[in-house]
């Protein structure tokens, strides 16, 4: 019999263990991408590899763990010793892209593997053609850096000298990478220590029984909720602007079928074929993004574990962008993941119109700048810019907030400037970039960089220049991305994805899209429009054009009569 009290205690114990692991990573990591941006995840799996808890870290990592775990078990089941750690990053064996290195530490109890501590970290660089190993214009995975199948990084608590040397020779900033792997290891150790305490308290049988029940509990909650949704099949299509090699739009299409027994089929048939650029999402990542999208519209108290996944079937045709063949490149697959969220939410909005927001900014922008300083010290900056949410059924979208697929932070300007030859001259909102609506989208962000080194390579990955973040229920789309080189001198407008060599003093300006609007913009409360204008988040022209609200210059008072005339005149 399952005792509800013990179940509650075990659940909070597991939540607290994964959070402790996550906290350990940021406290011990070396690179901005992990310690400031927080692009990493921590989780626990049971002995069969089923995820039983995930820390409040990157959502996109959530569902990739099962497939990666399966690869590790396939290669190493029965061949693991206490103190071993298996590392892998191969997207074709359950990984996501080369920079995301997974560490799995088996946790032993009475001589048997009972669980795994899992920590995924986005490494600053894993070698390959470009600094940051994150180019969107690679055409084969072989260009993207050091690909690791499941291998033992630690054996009986000691890091393998051979693996260490291979990493040292293949990555641009080995001190950072090895330091961050050390941080992942430290977090695994914390997971091992703490899960051991849980086992000591409850004994093997009880601990197993209750972790298994937690999975069932999550499944029950998920099914109970989905079974209340209106049955049917709901489709939605959105696009990536292009893969960067041609101007061809890249469609992503989903058909979500709600079944009576509370499970969903999410079928991606109809999405683009595999692309030449590094935007391919291997199946594990496709599943992950599908799961997280559904999870986002479930109620808050569903535990984040594999029980949720049992209610969601994912179909993606082989050879498509969402289930590519080798050697399809996938470094920039996160972008495809963001669009999957947009597509999924577009379909789910038809199921749950009072819960789903309009499209957000469409994913973070990744900017990598790498080179060598005058004293031949290599540097790699990986900066991520995010984000804005779309308008919601009952409130505005937020500005300056992580994409819900992630839970990322930003790198402080002062930290970047103290560590690297770069100056940031602007970090702020882009006025008027929001999609108009009864509830408007959030504003996009802009960031402006000046290179203080003689030379460096810049890679910039963005999207949403052509296919703008959509509005819902009559809300308008947001303004798109804008990239400009040297905006104050020769002002070269750049595409969404590009690579260039920068010289000292060159300036890069990136503007993110805002979020789409929700509901008819002409029904927005004029006082809210006035408040936005007073805060210089929108201009008087925008207020008039998009919301039909006339404001008095200087005082921002609503001209009620002119507003009524304008709003009525539209119909």
């Amino acid at each position, binding site marked *: 019999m399952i005792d*509800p*009290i013990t179940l*509650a*205690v075990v*659940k*909070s114990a597991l939540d*607290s263990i994964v*959070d*402790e692991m*996550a*906290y*350990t990573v*940021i*406290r011990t*990591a*070396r*690179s901005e991408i992990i310690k400031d941006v*927080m692009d990493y995840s921590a989780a626990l799996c049971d002995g069969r590899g089923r995820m039983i808890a995930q820390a*409040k*870290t990157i*959502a996109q990592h959530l569902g990739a763990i099962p497939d990666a775990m399966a690869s590790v078990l396939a290669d190493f089941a029965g061949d693991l010793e206490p103190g071993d750690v298996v590392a892998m990053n191969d997207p074709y064996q359950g990984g996501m892209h080369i920079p995301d290195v997974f560490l799995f530490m088996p946790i032993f109890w009475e001589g048997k593997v009972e669980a795994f501590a899992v920590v995924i970290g986005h490494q600053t660089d894993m070698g390959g053609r470009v600094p940051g190993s994150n180019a969107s214009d690679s055409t084969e995975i072989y260009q993207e850096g050091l690909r690791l199948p499941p291998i033992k990084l630690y054996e009986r608590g000691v890091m393998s000298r051979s693996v260490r040397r291979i990493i040292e020779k293949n990555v641009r900033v080995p*001190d950072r990478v090895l*330091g961050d792997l*050390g941080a992942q290891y*430290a977090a695994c*150790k*914390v997971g091992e220590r*703490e899960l051991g*305490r849980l086992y000591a308290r409850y004994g093997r049988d009880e601990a197993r029984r209750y972790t298994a029940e937690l999975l069932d*509990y999550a499944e*029950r*909650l998920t099914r109970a909720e989905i079974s209340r949704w209106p049955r049917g099949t709901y489709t939605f299509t959105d696009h990536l602007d292009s893969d960067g090699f041609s101007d061809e739009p890249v469609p992503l299409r989903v058909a979500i079928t709600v079944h009576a027994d509370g499970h969903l089929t999410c079928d991606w048939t109809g999405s683009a074929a595999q692309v030449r650029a590094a935007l391919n999402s291997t199946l594990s990542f496709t599943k992950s993004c599908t799961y*997280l999208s559904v999870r986002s519209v479930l*109620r808050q*108290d569903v535990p984040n574990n594999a029980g949720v996944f049992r209610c969601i079937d994912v179909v993606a045709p082989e050879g498509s962008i969402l289930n590519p063949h080798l050697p399809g490149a996938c470094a920039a697959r996160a972008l495809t993941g963001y669009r999957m969220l947009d597509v999924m939410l577009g379909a789910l909005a038809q199921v749950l119109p009072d*819960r*789903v927001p309009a499209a957000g900014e469409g994913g973070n922008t990744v900017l990598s700048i790498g080179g060598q300083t005058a004293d031949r010290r290599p540097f790699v900056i990986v900066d991520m810019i*995010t*984000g804005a949410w779309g308008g*919601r059924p009952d*409130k505005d979208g937020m*500005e*300056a*907030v*992580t994409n*819900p697929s992630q839970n*990322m*932070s*930003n790198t*402080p300007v*002062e930290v970047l*400037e*103290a560590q690297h030859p770069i*100056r*940031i*001259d602007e*970090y*702020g909102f882009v006025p008027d970039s929001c999609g108009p609506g009864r509830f408007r989208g959030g504003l996009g962000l802009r960031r402006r960089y000046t290179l203080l080194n003689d030379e460096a390579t810049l890679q910039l990955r963005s999207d949403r220049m052509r296919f703008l973040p959509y509005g819902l229920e009559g809300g308008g789309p947001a303004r798109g991305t804008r990239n400009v080189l040297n905006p104050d001198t020769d002002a070269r407008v750049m595409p969404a994805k590009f690579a260039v060599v920068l010289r000292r003093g060159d300036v890069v300006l990136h503007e993110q899209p805002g979020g789409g609007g929700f509901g008819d913009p002409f029904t927005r409360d004029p006082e809210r429009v006035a408040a936005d204008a*007073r*805060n210089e988040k929108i201009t008087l022209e925008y207020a008039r054009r998009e919301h039909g609200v006339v404001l008095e210059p200087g005082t921002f008072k609503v001209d009620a009569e002119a507003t009524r005339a304008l709003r009525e005149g539209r119909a």
Partner: protein
Amino acid sequence: MSARVGVDIGGTFTDIVLRLADGTLRVSKVSSTPEDPALAVVRGLEALLRAAAVSPAAVVEVVHGTTVASNTILQKKGARVGLLTTRGFRDVLEIGRVRTPDLFDLSWEKPEPLVPRRRRLEVDERIAADGAVVRPLDEAGLLAAAERLVADGADVIAVSFLNSYVDATHERRAERLLVARFPALDVTASYRVLPEIKEYERTSTTVVNAYLLPVMRRYLANLAAGLRAIGVEAPLLVVASNGGVVGAAGAAERPVFAVGSGPAAGVAGAARLGAVAETSNLIAFDMGGTTAKASLVEQGRVSLTTEYEFREGISTSSRFIKAGGYMLKVPAIDIAEVGAGAGSIAWIDAGGLLRVGPESAGAHPGPACYGQGGGRPTVTDANVALGFLNPAFLAGGELRIDAQRAREAIHAHVAAPLGLSVEEAAHGIRDVANANMARAIRSVTIERGRDPRDFTLVAFGGSGPVHAGDVAGALDIRRVLVPVSPGVFTAVGMLASDVEHHFVRAAGGALDGPALDRANARIDEMTREALATLAQEGYPRDQVRLDGLADLRYVGQASELVIPIPEGRLTPDRLPALRAAFAREYAATYGYASDEPLELVNVRVVATGLRPSRLDFRAIRVAGGIPPVAGARLVSFDRRAPAVNTPVLAREAVPAAGAAGPLVVESYDSTVVVPPGASIRRDALDNLVITLGATS
């Protein structure tokens, strides 16, 4: 006979403690007056002085902990702040760190910035990361922007320029120009509040300071005037978030340091108590009406954190998540808080799981058993149903209890839906609440590599001693110490605080040669400043203790460990000891350490004004109190076993030699539960000490 006063102003009650020179302690709990918190203090103190027949003129000091700063933020009642930033960075405050406190929550709302965009203006100026001037300060532009802010109603101006932690020349100049132009306005610059790297954290802290300035100054002036009006002329002191006390003038100038004022005092008091009770390693465990708090005291030192977020609701024990509130990067006692208090409501979620809190029945309607209209079961109702709390009255008879209502509420909302008996459900409520509280304790011990079994649990707050035995048992903690007057211990603790001032300077550099000289020069600067500040507050050099601290990390990391500097100076011959101390601390926290190079991020000086008369917990005698109780009642300690007839004693009746559990000890302000298998005794300081048996 001289007297000292400690005051803890909480949301529901204001606790006042009067300590006479002969060691007698008089305590009083009065209802708080949130609209003017000073009122409850002044009235309550006047009554207490009268009852004790002490002349107001005999009061030599009033120390108080206040929630005025935190409530001002919660209720958004602070100043209209105008913020001046470097050109290009007016949105730093609103952008923040862009994370969300939870995953998968599309309905989350970011906290409103304390300064709206319209009152954040940019100024032409720029200093580079190496201190070079990229662009000089545009003085005319600065004043023009300030004029606009003032015209828009700003009554405080905050200044936060990029890289001012490296070189504050522009901020200093801006400050001077603004003060000269607007003599009636408050001006607060980031280099004074927090001269540290990371523009958002520094700006946010500066803005919170600005936001609180006028409110806090008014409140302190008001309180001082009220006290004078009843004849109390003694200096007024405020407990800071780090547990030290500062003069009212200092608190009025830098209120951001007093946001965590109240809870900090309890922990500092526990540390002080530990020092005299020969318990230098302890966990302060404070359970009140809506939350429970835990904090670690090691080797007699409280655990300090250098940043935390102030947020509405309850902070979870998940310290790595930051996003939900207003960032304050100030030294504060590291306190984990969970929504499990006496008034926390038990409920069943959609998956059929029993939950407790964070919603609380508060003082109104209160637990169902108070009979004031509360119908939902709380932790207190569970305690009444199981016999832990007196089923007829609490607070020495001042509060009637209706045990039947407690049982009915538990039956309707927990027992029936789960198919359990009322006793089983009540045990469930207690167990879930205990597990939540254990989580708070875990986050300050296990999460940092400390084994809770090496610590004594010091339990206080009205309900701390009711749960301490079980919470300790869940973590295999063997020893629980319940101080005298646990229900007003926070106020008592204030009388035991020292005056403390914390200073910090960035010292960014490797741990060698020139960097050491720079760091030592900054230590000297801070030492001079510290001595001057304390001298003003009446502490001559021989009553000041100075401690130097270094924030160290491996090169490239983002988080530092704070390590004491041997003899307060960074000289080459002391470095090995410093490195070794870092390695020890690092290994204890993270499970590994390496021989990689270290970097020195900040140096700190903590200056303590030693109060010759501070309370040391020896010879406390509580005057007044309640009629002694005695008897027995049925208490259900174990849901798999029948309730046992359990003796009930008055605190005074606990034998010094000890008594075996099960036992319940009742006093005016708290109930102490001693589970079966445990024992209790009274120590030489009159504390109750519970010893738990070995567990499996």
